[in-house]
Structure formats: structure tokens, C-alpha cells
């Protein structure tokens, strides 16, 4: 993957009034999700009611941007032709520290990717917009003493 992802002609999100805060935050490099004030659970993707307790008291909050890789795939034959110049590239399922799982684009790290790896938010310009992509947390960068 040596192509500039921002030049890809890929399909962008189909944004609605309800989901706009998520994408506006993404454009600023933040990952914002909904928090249910009644049951206390966090919600992704955005909805008008909490899927756990059906409360309407959902507030936006910034997520930590940390998560665990549940599965991933290196895509050689993309389902959309706009992604062909980037292939092979990696998508994965990230269990956010807040609980919900989301699918995202995974940037390469220094080590081969493994299920269970810790990931962190890595806002990335793809197809003309900044999306909440993820990258591996590099163990060395974390533990190295100053």
C-alpha cells in the first residue's frame, strides 16, 4: 500500500442529521460515540435510542481511541473499485475500550498484525475526508523509559 489514500475515489459515508456529530468529530480527528445516561452503556453506531435499554437520553462523548483487535483481513480484491489502487490493505474489527465494536481501516505497524493486538485511533485522510482509522500500539513506544 504505497498509494496516497486521500486520492482514492472511494464511497464516503451517507451522513444523516443524527449521525453528523460523529462525522464532524471525525473530520477533526476525534472519535465520538454516544453514552446512555440511563443504563450507562456506550453506543456505536449513533442511534436515536439506546439499543440496550431504549432510553432516549444519549449524549455524545469522546472515546479514548483505544481498542483491541478482534479480527482482521488483508483485502486483496476490494468489493468497491475505488479501493483497487490501495489493495492489499487491512480492515479490522476493533472492540473499543468503551465496549462497542466498530469496523475500521488499520494502518500498518512495525510488527505483523495479530488478533488481540491493542490499537489506537489514527485519523487518516481517505478519499478526500478524514476518517477514524486505527493503528497498532507499538509496545516499544509505550514501555521505553525516558
Amino acid at each position, binding site marked *: 500500500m504505497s498509494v496516497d489514500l486521500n486520492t482514492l475515489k472511494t464511497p*464516503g459515508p451517507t451522513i444523516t442529521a443524527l449521525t453528523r456529530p460523529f462525522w464532524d468529530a471525525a473530520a477533526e480527528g476525534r472519535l465520538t460515540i454516544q453514552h446512555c445516561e440511563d443504563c450507562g452503556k456506550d453506543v456505536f453506531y449513533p442511534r436515536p435510542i439506546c439499543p440496550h435499554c431504549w432510553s432516549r437520553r444519549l449524549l455524545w462523548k469522546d472515546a479514548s481511541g483505544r481498542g483491541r483487535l478482534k*479480527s482482521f483481513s488483508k483485502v486483496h*480484491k476490494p468489493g*468497491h473499485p475505488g479501493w483497487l489502487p490501495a489493495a*492489499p490493505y487491512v*480492515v479490522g474489527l476493533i472492540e473499543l475500550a468503551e465496549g462497542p465494536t*466498530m469496523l475500521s481501516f488499520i494502518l500498518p505497524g512495525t510488527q505483523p498484525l495479530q488478533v*488481540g493486538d491493542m490499537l489506537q485511533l489514527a485519523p487518516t485522510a481517505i478519499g478526500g475526508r478524514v476518517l477514524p482509522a486505527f493503528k497498532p500500539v507499538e509496545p516499544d513506544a509505550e514501555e521505553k523509559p525516558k
Partner: protein
Amino acid sequence: MSRSKGAIVGIGELKPQRLTSGVTTLEMIADVSRLAVLDAGLDPAAIDGLLVGPQVGETPQHVPATIAEYLGLAPTMANVVDLGGASGAGMVWRAAAAIEAGMCEAVLCVLANNREETAPRSPNRNPIREFDVPFGASGANISYALLMKAHMAEYGSTARDFARIAAAARANAQLNPDAIFFGKPADVETVLASPMIASPLRLLEIVMPVAGGEAVVVTSAERARSLRKPPVHLLGAGEKVTHRAVSHAPSLTSGPLKSAMAQAFAQSGTRADEMDLLSLYDCYTIMVATTIEDAGLCAPGQFGAWLGDHDLSHKGDRPLNTHGGQLGFGQPDLAGGMTHVVEAVRQLRGEAGERQIGKAGLALVTGNGATMSEATALVLGAA
């Protein structure tokens, strides 16, 4: 064993083809419906129930009325079943339930699709389109690749374990002249050498999309007795819908078929290991692996060892997808799920010819839609 909840008395199937040229879905629905009603020995006027799939190519709305008009039917029960690959199995149970509720007496269940060279891209405006597609995850291949990778990571299952499922399907398809891969066997090495599509998923572990159609006629057990073909009874059924997108799957290594199959076995008073035929939905190899485990045929994660212990051919100890499965037969869109119903009926009638299994008393049929999301299981019994 429990009493019959209804009987499948007629089946129809169109030979799959890679592409159609100018034929409409409605025309194919008419052709395959006629085959099923003829097979049942019923007068078309006796069909008073109609179950169809969603979004027939030419008509996104009023689908049952459009098809009823086209077929010259005036049903007293008409509905859409929209469970993806579980639609075919889901129709059989709904037909039996509608008959028992007094809504109708004889139900035509039909699914068909054309496949023209120039098909429009998806008009979807759903959460998958908004939250998965922009990240590069379009289509089912990537979703099932994620399920397969999760199984490998959790249990240490290997590419070779999965490839055996595709090779077995191809082997069984060599006894089905209508299968798209008839005359084209593929052994494990060939599957493993096929191009990587989305790791760890390879090309020959993915169904080939084809045009085709399938239909069955369901009526009451009482009425079935007077018809020309031996009835195949619905003895138990189960269903479960848990999510749509793979990111929302409650588990990546076990699916809603687990509870659907448990319900079907409980209703019918049967067990998985009593089945003479396993007619398991197989859009991808991982789907068969998970279903074998969820059925309780082996412990979670142990499908590879199970495959090594059993012969899945028609003369084996565990006949599985004797028509070749969709991996060998081809996947005519939603009708692909109904191939598993139609083959089970053939086997339980003793009409499977060269690929007839020995003892043919009980069959398990599974349907699966979206990403291990929609699940229907049927236990069928011979007359």
C-alpha cells in the same frame, strides 16, 4: 418424534447459469413455480398461499401482488420473506404455520433471480453503507474473512481444515449434472492454491454467483396424503436473528443457528447425530465449519478433526450437501438457500438417483443470511 407440522409436496429447480440475457426475474419465477406445482400434482388454482423474496429485480414494492398477478393466482395469504440466505428455510416454516392458522391450504414458496451483465450497484442507505463501506469493507467476502480469521485465532483452525469443506462440496457436485461445477472437481491443494481474496479467504471458498430459481409447495400433512409424491414432513423448526453487520455480531465464532438448530431439534425430538443428511447453508467454508460446531456434532473449534473422521459423500457416514452445496452448485442469490431444502426433499423421497444416500429418514436443513445474522433451521422427515 413429533407429529408433522406440514409437508413439502412439490419441488422445482432451474439449472443455474452464469449470466442471463434479457430474461426477467418474473419469467424465471413463473418457470420454477410451474415445475414445483406440476411436481406436486396440484391444479395451480389450488395454490392459495404465496411466499416470495424481497425486491424482485423489476419491482421493489408490492412483490407478492405482482407475482400473484403474473402467475394468475389469487392467494388468501401472501407475504415477503426477507431473511437473506435463510429465506428459503424460513418460508417452509411460515407456510406450515399459515396453514395451521387457517390462512390457506397450499403455499407456493418461490425464489429466483436473473443475472444480467450490467447490474446496478447497491442503492443501500443503511448503517453498513455509512459505517463500514467508507473504511474499505464492501461486500460479504470481507465480513466472512473476518469470521474465518477469528476462528483461526481462537481455535488454531487451519487453511487446510477450511479447504476440505470446499473440496468436499466440489466432489459431491460431480454427481449433480446441473451443478455449475459439474465436471470441475477441485481438491484441497487446488483450493489452497486459488487466489487470496481477503485473507484468510481464498477464491474457491466463496460461492459462485449464478442465475437460477427454486420453489417448493407446502401443504398440510392430511392433504399431502392424497398427492402424487411421497410427502416430506416438517418435524421441527427454529429461527434467530441477532444482527446485520459483522461488527455487531454477538460472537464471531458461533452464530444464531446454534439456538435455531437447538429449537428445531427440541421441537422434532431429534438430535444432530441422528440426521441422515446434513443440508447446511454454505456461502463460504467458514459457514459450514461454524454450523457443524453449533449443531453440536463436535466441540467448538474441532470441525477440522471432525471432517477428518467423516466421509461427507452420499455413500459416506455423514452425507453433507449431496447436491454439491452452493459451493459446488452455484449460488442463485436468495434461491441458493432453497437448494438445501430441495435437495433434502429429493433425498428423503428417494429421488436423488446416482447420489441417493442409503438410509434417508431425517435431514437437517439450515439457512443463513447476511453475516451469520439471520438463521433458520428445519428438521425434515421422510413419509
